[in-house]
């Protein structure tokens, strides 16, 4: 086959693909393959470029036996691992000088692998999170049956701790269920319209006792006119509650939490008119290394502090999924000792 035709077919292949001649040299590679494996592949020995033993063996066997082979190719894309299933197909007589050639194509399995890994991690995390309060409960039950059986004072104190631990489990189960619900509805667009100003003042009213207890001043800034967005009231309320609660718990040291509602005629990310809720605290701020992972389930900047505060590690994950459903965005701006601003942007 003419070289031009081979190149054209490689270029038209929508997967990373290379052609290896029977001289074991790479005879051609498309742009996708160069992005995956590096530039200037043609003329190189295939094993110099694809050094992973299973793949090297598959290509060798394909050349020797003229039979199709598959192998895994592990790679990295920045910080993420990627997995490819590599198909080697013999092309007898199509190489240079009527020799054999092998067509090698790479199918990206990364997302499938990641989905499986995420599920396993999630189950492991949930078990771990549930077990911690459960272990405490079981320990105290044992003590109450034994050493502290007739000690009224200790009994009271232990029951208090047990109540707190049971509450923690209850909150975790509640958050898991609400995360599950939010996820299952994520594709359903909210039908109703609601006024964000009303929603904010009522949500903040319920949070005031918590703020007073923590000695935090809650300031709300909203305009005169109603700001209507399509939205599910309960869910958007949860977004506000979760963000303000976090600000009080983790940024309360700053003395005040400011909530502001503004409207934008045009927001680039929303590609149209938008509403913006900003929740700002003046606490210790968040180290930038944590920012990309904040909305991951069970990710905590400081797990000890989070446990003390009774956090479940799911609050921001729920916020993210609710905002996904509303086609909105969450932005976080923070620096150590500069406080933190969580911005919710919703299309109007």
């Amino acid at each position, binding site marked *: 086959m003419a070289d031009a035709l081979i190149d054209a077919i490689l270029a038209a292949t929508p997967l990373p693909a290379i052609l290896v001649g029977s001289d074991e040299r790479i005879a051609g590679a498309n742009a996708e393959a160069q992005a995956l494996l590096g530039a200037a592949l043609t003329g190189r*020995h295939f094993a110099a470029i694809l050094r992973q033993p299973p793949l090297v063996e598959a290509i060798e066997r394909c050349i020797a036996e003229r039979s199709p082979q598959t192998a895994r190719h592990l790679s*990295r894309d920045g910080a993420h691992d990627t997995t490819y299933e590599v198909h080697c197909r013999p092309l007898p007589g199509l190489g240079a000088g009527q020799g054999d050639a092998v067509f090698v194509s790479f199918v990206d399995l990364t997302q499938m692998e990641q989905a499986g890994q995420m599920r396993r991690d999630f189950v492991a995390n949930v078990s771990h999170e549930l077990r911690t309060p459960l272990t405490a409960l079981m320990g105290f039950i044992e003590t109450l049956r034994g050493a502290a059986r007739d000690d009224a004072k200790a009994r009271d104190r232990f029951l208090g701790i047990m109540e707190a631990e049971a509450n923690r489990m209850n909150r975790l189960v509640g958050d898991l269920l609400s995360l599950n619900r939010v996820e299952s509805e994520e594709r359903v667009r909210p039908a109703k319209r609601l006024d964000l100003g009303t929603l904010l003042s009522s949500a903040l009213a319920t949070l005031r006792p918590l703020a007073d207890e923590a000695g935090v001043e809650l300031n709300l800034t909203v305009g005169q006119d109603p700001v209507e967005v399509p939205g599910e009231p309960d869910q958007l309320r949860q977004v506000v509650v979760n963000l303000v609660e976090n600000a009080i718990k983790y940024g309360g040291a700053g003395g005040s939490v400011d909530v502001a509602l503004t409207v934008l005629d045009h927001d680039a990310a929303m590609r149209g008119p938008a509403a913006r809720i900003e929740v700002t605290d003046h606490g210790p701020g968040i180290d930038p290394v944590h920012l990309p992972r904040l909305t991951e389930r069970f990710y905590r900047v400081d797990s000890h502090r989070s446990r003390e505060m009774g956090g479940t590690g799911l609050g921001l994950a729920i916020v993210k999924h609710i905002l996904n459903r509303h086609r909105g965005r969450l932005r976080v701006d923070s620096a150590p000792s500069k406080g933190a601003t969580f911005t919710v942007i919703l299309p109007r």
Partner: protein
Amino acid sequence: MNTNHILSAFDRDLEGVQAKVMRMGGMVEQALRDSITALLSHDIEMAARVRQDDRAIDELDEAVKSDCARILALRAPTAVDLRVVLSVIEISSNLERCGDYAKNIAKRTPSVGVQHDIMETGTALRRMAEFVQAMLSDALDSYIHQDEDKALDVIQRDVEADQMYNTLFRSLLTHMMEDPRSIATAMHLHFIAKNIERVGDHATGICEQAIYVLTGEMPQEPRPKQDSTTRM
């Protein structure tokens, strides 16, 4: 090297020996990955396989070196071709050592019990192993794709690998002081951490060869060192 040689057999020899050393690199990468997986999942069979497969790595090292000797004797390469041959010999030695470290990790695996509290160190060990594996992988890529920036980047990253080792060293020391029963396991884990740290050093060695082939000179700046455990 893809500079066209009139002597195409020479070109074939040069490319062939580079392919061989890269194949060796692939085997070492897999040995390291498998040895860590075997350690953390306590998979004794997999560990035994890593130990067995080290023979193939050693054989390939021998083969690479005898190929290089033959090229030097028969072709008397000069300039960049000579540097390629010399660098391949050097990289082959680096890789052979890394293979030995993987084998050593595999050898210790049966002795590392599944003591749960100390295996929390396992998470840190896994992170360090992944970090160093990425360094080795990028080192080999930088060599074969003649990517000087990537090579310099890997050399810089060795500082972080050393810091990870320091942290592990400290946490293992704490474990041992708190609970003398953990000493045997902690000692094994410490040697394993040291093995991984050494792989990072060999990765920088490979990068120095990549730069040597490209420029004819070894990198000027002194290699960054952050191993502070000698002062603890």
